[in-house]
């Protein structure tokens, strides 16, 4: 396997094989099978995930991380080692040490020796919230300005979006596998670049180039033809290639994919992902730099190769973004299929019946606490006239409610299925049974002074 010392490469290939929690296992499987790469990055976390993992950990001290990652190691560690690929994954969730233990146990079971596993810690401030609040950090909601105190007893997780430098440090200590908790998605690929090329914290244009490259690949196949407007033009969508970044030391990079894979890499496919969740193109704020997406120049440099250059960035803010989640009540959603004739009219009657029967039993939901959707009769593009949908052959009626009272939300679920025998004719598709109340997890975006956050890198083998 690779040695620990910082290399002096002029070029490094980084692949992202996992765009989100629940993405296909085939990403990393195929990337390793289909061609060369130096680094494999895997993103397992979303905001809602952190809260779920925190609850798992509260029940079991050795839980609270992305177990999919350990399954990936079970299946692919042999190839990862044989091909000298280094792995960076935010699979640690709220318990990166337990994730590391599970990975080391998997490596032992497979008889793999000498593989160093690093852990980056410091993002999880759930246990430090009161200390931070009393030391003057207000953790106000960035959107509403409200003080955290208003939801403090209901907070279920709190994690800082760390930057890429701790990942680079782990790699420079010789780690073959780096496990982090919460960090930014682009940081997973920026860390290896910082390590390989020795980029410094004040080289903002370079850090911006790495951040922009990371943003382009962070949703996996969304830059190689997935979720692409002109879908008819995408060849072999079933075998869409996962993206590769070929980064140069000077900050120019090429987005590409392995030869023979499906999909395509074009200026337009890359541009599709640049705009995704972009916000202000001139001010993409990250922990390591502020990147100007509008500075990126995209150029087709061959089949399935897009060259990106000219990326500009400047100094980051003195704060980290914090993702705090809190318990925010309950919701329940269920659906029935209503066949024609008159599918839409009957579906509307069904919705009325449900609300009326609930009200009879003293269970009222205000308009903002409930939803009626008539799937098949223009839900996604509501209010935008579509021809030919006046009498669809069938409609899926989807009803939902939310509120603070779990019992009341559960009560709703009892009135949906009875429509089959006590509503208009043609009601079916009640598979799945009664909808049950599930917890709503609220998000509380906040900022914390960087001085208060201490990252720690540890290496194990």
């Amino acid at each position: 396997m690779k040695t620990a010392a910082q290399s002096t490469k002029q070029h490094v290939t980084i692949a992202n094989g996992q765009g989100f929690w629940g993405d296909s296992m085939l990403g990393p499987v195929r990337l390793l099978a289909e061609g060369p790469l130096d680094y494999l990055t895997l993103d397992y976390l979303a905001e809602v995930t952190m809260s779920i993992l925190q609850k798992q950990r509260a029940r079991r001290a050795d839980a609270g991380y992305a177990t999919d990652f350990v399954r990936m190691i079970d299946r692919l560690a042999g190839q990862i080692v044989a091909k000298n690929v280094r792995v960076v994954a935010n699979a640690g969730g709220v318990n990166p040490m337990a994730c590391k233990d599970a990975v080391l146990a998997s490596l032992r079971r497979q008889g793999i020796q000498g593989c160093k596993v690093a852990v980056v810690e410091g993002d999880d401030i759930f246990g430090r919230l009161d200390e931070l609040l009393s030391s003057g950090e207000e953790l106000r909601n960035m959107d509403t300005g409200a003080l955290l105190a208003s939801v403090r007893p209901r907070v279920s997780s709190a994690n800082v979006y760390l930057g890429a430098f701790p990942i680079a440090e782990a790699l420079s200590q010789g780690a073959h596998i780096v496990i982090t908790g919460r960090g930014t998605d682009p940081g997973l690929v920026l860390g290896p670049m910082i390590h390989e090329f020795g980029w410094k914290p004040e080289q903002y244009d370079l850090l911006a180039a790495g951040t922009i490259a990371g943003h382009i690949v962070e949703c996996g196949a969304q830059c190689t033809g997935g979720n692409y407007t002109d879908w008819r033009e995408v060849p072999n969508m079933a075998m869409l290639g996962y993206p590769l970044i070929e980064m140069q030391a000077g900050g120019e990079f090429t987005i590409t994919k392995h030869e023979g894979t499906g999909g395509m890499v074009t200026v337009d496919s890359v541009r599709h992902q640049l705009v995704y969740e972009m916000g202000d193109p001139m001010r993409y704020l990250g922990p390591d730099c502020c990147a100007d997406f509008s500075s990126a120049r995209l150029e087709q440099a061959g089949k399935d190769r897009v060259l990106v250059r000219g990326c500009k960035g400047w100094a980051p803010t003195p704060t980290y973004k914090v993702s705090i989640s809190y318990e925010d009540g309950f919701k329940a959603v269920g659906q029935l299929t209503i066949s024609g004739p008159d599918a839409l009219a009957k579906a509307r009657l069904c919705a009325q019946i449900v609300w009326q029967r609930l009200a009879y039993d003293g269970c009222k939901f205000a308009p903002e606490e409930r939803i009626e959707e008539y799937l098949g009769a223009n839900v996604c593009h509501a209010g935008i006239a579509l021809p030919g949908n006046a009498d669809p052959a069938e409609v899926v009626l989807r009803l939902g409610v939310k509120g603070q009272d779990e019992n009341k939300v559960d009560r709703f679920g009892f009135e949906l299925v009875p429509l089959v025998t006590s509503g208009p004719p043609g009601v079916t598709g009640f598979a799945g049974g009664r909808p049950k109340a599930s917890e709503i997890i609220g998000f509380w975006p906040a900022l914390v002074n960087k001085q208060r956050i201490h990252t720690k890198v540890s290496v194990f083998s």
Partner: protein
Amino acid sequence: MPRVALSRIASARSGDKGEGSNVGVMARSKAAYDFLQRTLTTELVAEHMHGINSGAVKRYEAESLGVLNFILSDSLGGGGSASLRTDAQGKTHGLALLRLELDVPQAVLDLTPAPKGVA
């Protein structure tokens, strides 16, 4: 002037951003960008998307990328897991915007290649 759907001269991608959605509109040519920069105003987008978005609409321009980026500030029925909507992440908002019909000068259409399957 021919009346065509926005999809004839632009592509789009959308996703969630807090309690709203980010809708990136990508012009299919320089001529299309210049036309849309003048025509595709926040007022027009707000009116077209009124059944989806009940908040303010903000527009960012990135001319070098041929991109107009719109933020619909209240388009998910609550953010994150609080939404009851099918499209709680605004994944379909880009395609909804591409249905917008516009009077586009023939000269702009001539300079803008149509995608496969779009007349």
